[in-house]
């Protein structure tokens, strides 16, 4: 129940914050928030660290490793591409 409480509050918080982002920044916002959705990497790591249980069956290792790979692509790629875009935006502003 506490988890649902957290869910509801964060959803409202998300609406409040995101609604104020200008349309100019929507693409970086999207790639940046996409990187945040890679937080599922924590779930992937936890499934490999053994916190979920024995964690030593071949299938579980395969699933966990694949999950880590996909989530890491999402995280690393997402943040780096956002940085690349935002760097173009700010450089130009300094010029003005």
């Amino acid at each position: 129940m506490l988890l649902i409480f957290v869910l509801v509050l964060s959803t409202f918080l998300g609406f409040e914050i995101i609604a104020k982002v200008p349309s100019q920044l929507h693409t970086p916002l999207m790639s940046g928030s996409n990187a945040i959705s890679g937080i599922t990497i924590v779930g992937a790591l936890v499934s490999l660290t053994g916190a979920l249980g024995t964690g030593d069956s071949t299938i579980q290792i395969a699933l966990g490793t694949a999950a880590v790979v996909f989530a890491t692509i999402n995280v690393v790629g997402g943040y780096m591409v956002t940085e690349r875009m935002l760097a173009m935006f700010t450089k130009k502003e300094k010029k003005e």
Partner: protein
Amino acid sequence: MNGILDINLQDFFYIVSAALFVFGLKMMQKSESARKGNLISAIGMLVAVITALLGSQILNWQWILLGLAIGSLIGALSSRLVAMTAMPEMVALFNGFGGMASLLVSWSAFHQLYTSGELATSPWNQMVIISLTLLIGGVTFTGSLIAWGKLSGKLTTRPVLFPGQNIVNFLILLALLTAILYLGPLQGVLLNYQNGILSPYSIFIIIMVLSGILGILSVIPIGGGDMPVVISLLNSYSGMAACAAGFVISNNVLIVSGALVGSSGIILTNIMCKAMNRSLTNVLFSGFGAASTGKRKNKDQQGEVKALSVEDAYYLLEAAASVVIVPGYGMAVAQAQHIVQEIAQLLEENGAEVDFAIHPVAGRMPGHMNVLLAEAKVPYDKLREMDDINPRIDQVDVAVVIGANDVVNPAARTDKDSPLYGMPVINVEKAKTVIVLKRSMNTGFAGIDNPLFYMDNTRMLFGDAKATLQALVSELKSK
């Protein structure tokens, strides 16, 4: 099995990480602080990853390292190599990977319960959560792959429709619901649960396969022009998948950040829908642009298309005191953003006032044109939003439409039969002269005919946008 951090410290660091995400997103509200915001959000991610690693005994460190190394390599390389024009495909693909990761986490959790024999005794709500993560993750993954295929041109951008599509979707949803009920609340009720025809594991696999099919079926009927809505929605799904995975492993930071991304995607979806004057249901189910506009063609083609030579275009622009450039996806396809900026500069040196008019859904994702023009170093204050430019467009001498089509279609205001009717557009036809750069007379991404091309004050400049603009630049420079 305790790691270096005890459970209280873990919770503390997860809260820190969630707070950093919130701060990071908050700083995205201003372009000056957005870059720092992204960094803060990335630090939040690092805190979460380290906390997860130190939180329990690490059993499979070699696999963790391998996974992190492969993922970082692919992620870093693709983010370096991707062209700014291909950003929508990239974001679609990353959304899909996020969904896939959540799917795998759910599978891993299920497998662990299954092999340890705890499946029959685990609470039904846990099974529902695992199934829902699987469902959302699967839909996000295949849906994003289809979106990626459509955006990169590997799949048809036309809506794919077949008879009974909605019925098939409904039946799949029904089957999914039944399967989830069977794994969850009904597991104790059905006596044959363990020895029945379908083992829990096969039901789990069925849910996975059906979710994948549902993802494909829900994106194929959506036309290319509606892609900004779809990738916003898939962005939201990838957040919800992470959020659901948070419930599977009872982890607050996943729930908070998943919810943030989920709501962010919904807001963007909503903005995109408003910019097209359509409801989300209409975007998702109508197969917009599928029916070609055969009967309308006769009505519209009353005027005649007036082609223009590069030299004539030069004389028009040279004499203009105010010019508005309206870029669209065609500019991205032709990689013409740099040359567009060069022209804008040359025209300004010539004494003209040059603005860029950006329609909210121009391009294939929210804010796509802004990123491309930023890449070409077009200054911020030159970019005007639609509502800003429309009231004064009748004072503009020349409007130059570069690879945009539906967002400047006057039928959206005048023709009640047009599928675009009611969509806010940039009223370029009110400018004194309109120059439209276009590859050919084919209809746009959405497949809808555009009466703008037949109007008296419209001149068509046919050919590849980049080559045409290049020729125009040399004209401007030589005289």
